[in-house]
């Protein structure tokens, strides 16, 4: 219809510019129109039309002026100046998504077959005007000769990479336009800005045709599974499973985490409303040291359209090292004994204790050699930084020197260690910790008054943050866990810790017997590279003594507390990859952060990474220092086959080894293609709009040929298209004259 009225397609108008071919300069046109309108007005005013003369005269004047202006405009010969591709001299790249998601059936027919049908309609008209090149799009664009080559078998879709390849072709070939037929299910994280900028710079429009349903009717899809990249052996670990569903609202489903054939954890959940995103934690034991391939899944329900997107695999390194925690206690007391007993049963964390038994005698336990802590609290950074966490019990701050205070700050801030303050007669405010650097380190602002330590019964209750925290998870079920905490025996003392700082998390509160007030009991926060916390009671030992010997609440809590302190503590060498999953790619970027014994960045180290693949083969890469960041080393490794890899970086300075860091990653081929299988119309529309093209439904694909004609890319000529003879102008002139005639007839003047 548009083309019937306006003679040319919309694209011609959107891409062209208006020119006037008439006999005079264009500025004369409005002048003549104004003059004509004035003369018409004067003539009509002289012949005013009876009753209501002013309104009738004005209406007639307006219609006649509009008609007069229209005629003048046509006389001035308006035209459209637009670039058009020269016939048969330009290439149109027709790119067809040939990934596995194109094999999905929407409403009975396969997306691939719909694309073939669209090509059958489109290719003949394109071939009449242009040279057509067919491309098969997977991880890259590959030229094919016939639409029969499209089998929907490519393991991934990288639209950006494919377009970049075509841009490269356009350097030597006159590419006039790109036609992309796809479901938009890109697995490379979208189209990068560089590719878009280059397309715009070359003025190559991308016309997109979208296939596939924009919404599956019955499907459960995992959106993300988050697991820690590494964990200590024997730790309780949480997998956070996020998903969305359509068509199964309110139904029950099972979420499962497996390691190979072993089920590590399983729970029944109720599915949320259609389209709503839900996130469920699933707790499991990390097990023995090694690399875990954790498969998180939701068991498929009957009638699911795409069960393949119910499962994701993540890789986690279970560390075999045994972090050491230094616990310095200022007085013998029961809390010390029972914390030690709880940690005695943890074979993956070692508690080293320094106890002020008398005014001048320390009692050491868990030491590696007789010299360790012989002189009391470490006086050298390299000695203190050998521990992964530090616990300060009922110990006067002044027992430590100002230099040791500063070392403790650096222990957390620079070394990345964990720090726990315990309550006591000489703990927190009673111990004189309301001074630098402890005021910075503490997750609370200590009270300004004294007598904050109370020997009186208090119960404990979890906060909302505590219900979600792994530190406080005595049993897996969050609801049962919260009830379990309420039923813990009383503590016979508690301490006012002060006010939690902004950014700190209060995980548990103490409720003194008979009191209405609650006081923060367990507060945590991140500080620098490390983390700090406060436990404002020394009475948790009654959770052990006042409960049956089979009850493990006390041991579980303290083990999890201590593991929280050390789990995030980095070693001198930290090896990382941008993501633990490398999807449909072989290139893996390795990054090592290397520090010396005082945890100062080491820019002069020699760093090598050894990578062991899923088949047991290994390779070594030398990591190069990053000149912009001291202590950072980088390398790229090529993972030859799909599967799990473990990389170990070794840093040396001369003959001395500074440390080792381990990272696990997994190469997955073709898995990402099973996810986000609904048509990504938004991506296709954005790509078209930003490059000067348009998005089409398959039924409208045949119109693309006309659109492409008006492309500025390739070999084009500028054409001038007359507009004065557009049918719409004649219809408008007719309407104006008819309108005046109808009015005059109505007023009885004819």
């Amino acid at each position, binding site marked *: 219809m548009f083309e019937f009225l306006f003679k040319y397609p919309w694209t011609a108008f959107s891409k062209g510019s208006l020119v006037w071919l008439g006999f005079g300069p264009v500025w004369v046109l409005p002048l003549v129109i104004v003059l004509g309108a004035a003369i018409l007005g004067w003539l009509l005013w002289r012949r005013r039309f009876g009753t209501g003369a002013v309104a009738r005269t004005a209406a007639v004047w307006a219609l006649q002026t509009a008609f007069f202006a229209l005629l003048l405009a046509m006389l001035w010969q308006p035209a459209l100046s637009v670039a058009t591709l020269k016939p048969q001299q330009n290439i149109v790249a027709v790119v067809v998504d040939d990934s596995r998601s194109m094999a999905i059936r929407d409403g009975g027919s396969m997306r691939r077959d719909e694309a073939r049908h669209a090509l059958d309609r489109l290719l003949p008209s394109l071939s009449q005007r242009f040279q057509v090149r067919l491309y098969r799009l997977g991880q890259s664009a590959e030229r094919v000769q016939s639409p029969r080559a499209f089998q929907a078998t490519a393991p991934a879709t990288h639209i950006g990479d494919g377009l970049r390849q075509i841009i490269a072709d356009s350097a030597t070939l006159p590419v006039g336009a790109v036609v992309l037929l796809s479901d938009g299910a890109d697995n490379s994280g979208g189209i990068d800005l560089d590719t878009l900028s280059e397309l715009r710079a070359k003025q190559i429009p991308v016309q997109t045709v979208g296939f596939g349903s924009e919404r599956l009717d019955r499907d459960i899809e995992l959106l993300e599974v988050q697991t820690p990249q590494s964990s200590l052996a024997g730790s309780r670990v949480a997998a956070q499973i996020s998903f969305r569903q359509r068509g199964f609202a309110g139904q029950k489903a099972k979420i499962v985490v497996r390691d190979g054939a072993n089920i590590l954890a399983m729970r029944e959940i109720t599915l949320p409303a259609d389209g709503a995103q839900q996130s469920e934690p699933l707790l499991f034991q990390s097990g023995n040291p090694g690399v875990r391939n954790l498969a998180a899944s939701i068991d498929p329900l009957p009638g699911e359209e795409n069960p393949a997107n119910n499962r994701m695999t993540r890789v986690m390194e279970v560390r075999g090292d045994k972090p050491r925690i230094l616990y310095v206690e*200022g*007085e*013998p*007391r*029961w809390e*010390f*004994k*029972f914390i*030690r*007993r709880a940690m*005695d*049963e943890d074979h993956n964390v070692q508690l080293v*204790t320094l*106890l*002020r*038994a*008398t*005014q001048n*005698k320390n*009692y050491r*336990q868990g030491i590696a050699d007789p010299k360790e802590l012989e002189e009391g609290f470490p006086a050298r950074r390299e000695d203190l930084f050998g521990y992964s966490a530090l616990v300060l019990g009922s110990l006067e701050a002044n027992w430590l020197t100002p230099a040791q205070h500063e070392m403790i700050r650096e222990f957390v801030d620079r070394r990345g260690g964990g720090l726990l303050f315990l309550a006591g*007669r000489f703990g927190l405010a009673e111990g004189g910790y309301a001074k630098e650097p402890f005021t910075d380190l503490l997750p609370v602002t200590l009270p300004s008054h004294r007598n904050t330590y109370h*020997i*009186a*019964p208090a*119960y404990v209750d979890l906060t909302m943050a505590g219900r979600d925290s792994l530190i406080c998870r005595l049993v897996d079920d969050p609801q049962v866990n919260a009830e379990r905490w309420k039923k813990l*025996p*009383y503590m*016979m003392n508690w301490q006012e810790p002060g006010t939690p700082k902004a950014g700190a998390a209060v995980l548990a509160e103490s409720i003194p*017997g*008979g009191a209405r007030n609650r006081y923060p009991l367990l507060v945590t926060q991140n500080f620098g590279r490390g983390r700090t916390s406060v436990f404002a009671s*020394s009475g948790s*030992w*009654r959770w*052990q*003594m*006042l*409960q*049956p*010997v089979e009850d493990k609440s006390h041991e579980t809590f303290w083990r999890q507390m201590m593991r929280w302190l050390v789990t995030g503590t980095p070693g001198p060498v930290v090896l990382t990859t941008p993501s633990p999953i490398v999807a449909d790619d072989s290139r893996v970027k390795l990054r090592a952060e290397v520090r010396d014994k005082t945890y100062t960045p080491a820019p002069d180290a020699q760093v090598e990474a050894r990578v062991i693949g899923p088949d047991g083969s290994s390779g070594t890469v030398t990591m190069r220092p990053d000149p912009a960041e001291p202590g950072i080393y980088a390398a790229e490794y090529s993972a030859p086959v799909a599967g799990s890899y473990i990389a170990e970086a070794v840093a040396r300075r001369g003959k001395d080894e500074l440390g080792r860091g381990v990272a696990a990653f997994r190469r997955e081929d073709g898995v990402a293609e099973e996810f986000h299988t609904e048509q990504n119309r938004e991506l296709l529309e954005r790509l078209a709009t930003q490059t000067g093209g348009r998005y089409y439904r398959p039924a409208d694909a045949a119109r693309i040929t006309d659109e492409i004609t008006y492309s500025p890319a390739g070999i084009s000529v500028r054409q001038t298209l007359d507009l004065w003879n557009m049918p719409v102008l004649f219809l408008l002139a007719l309407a104006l004259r008819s309108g005046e005639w109808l009015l005059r007839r109505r007023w009885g003047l004819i």
Partner: protein
Amino acid sequence: MRICFVVSGLFLALLCLAAYAQKEFREYPGVEYENFPLPPDYRDKTEFTRARLIYPSVRYGWRRFNSWTIDYPRSDRHLLAGIRRLTRIDTRSVEQPVNPDDGDDIFNWPFLYAVEVGHWDLTDAQCGKIREFLLRGGFLMVDDFHGTQEWDVFIASMSRILPEHPIVELDNKDPIFHTLYDLDERFQVAGAQYFDSGKTYEKDGYEPRWRGIYDDKGRVMVAICHNMDLGDAWEWSDDPRYPEKWASLAYRIGVNYLIYDMTH
């Protein structure tokens, strides 16, 4: 209605607290001492005090005397004063007699001392309670029993508390002898009968025996001081007639065992 709910909830919470909470200090008439003066700070709330086990004694004919109160309370208070002076432990000035039949009270006092256990005669319920106390992490020190006959009486109850755990001689290298003082050289600590008899032993208990029972993790949970009388040594440590070396060893043993308990 809401106020009633809150009040009843608070009342229930207080009831629970009362049921759980440790017992207040209390005094009993002893075999040797009655109306022993209380120190002015006896009400102080502290981290530690030594608990003295109340137990039923064996009958001799129709007579059954409270052997658990031997040396009580003078011995306890001398030792507690010593602990205050020698360590950084926050210590109460008075002891805490603990009856295993008093509900869960025993579990509030992780260091339990029993004297004259050569005369104890525990019921099955008491054995079960003390067993649970030990397995949860409590520590029991027994003292002041001598010779074969009293050993047999001790074993008659002890074997019902921890039948699966053997009684062994404590090695000199065991940390319990080295927590604060290195006590490789130990000797028999005589009781006050020495004043009259001049003998360091009683009955056929000629040799002091430093024995113990270990838990599954290799920690001493019962320390058995057989053929010696540390209780008398603490009790008479302020008497010039009592030899200083015995009193000193008794205090060192008491402190070492306590520090051991508080660290293991």
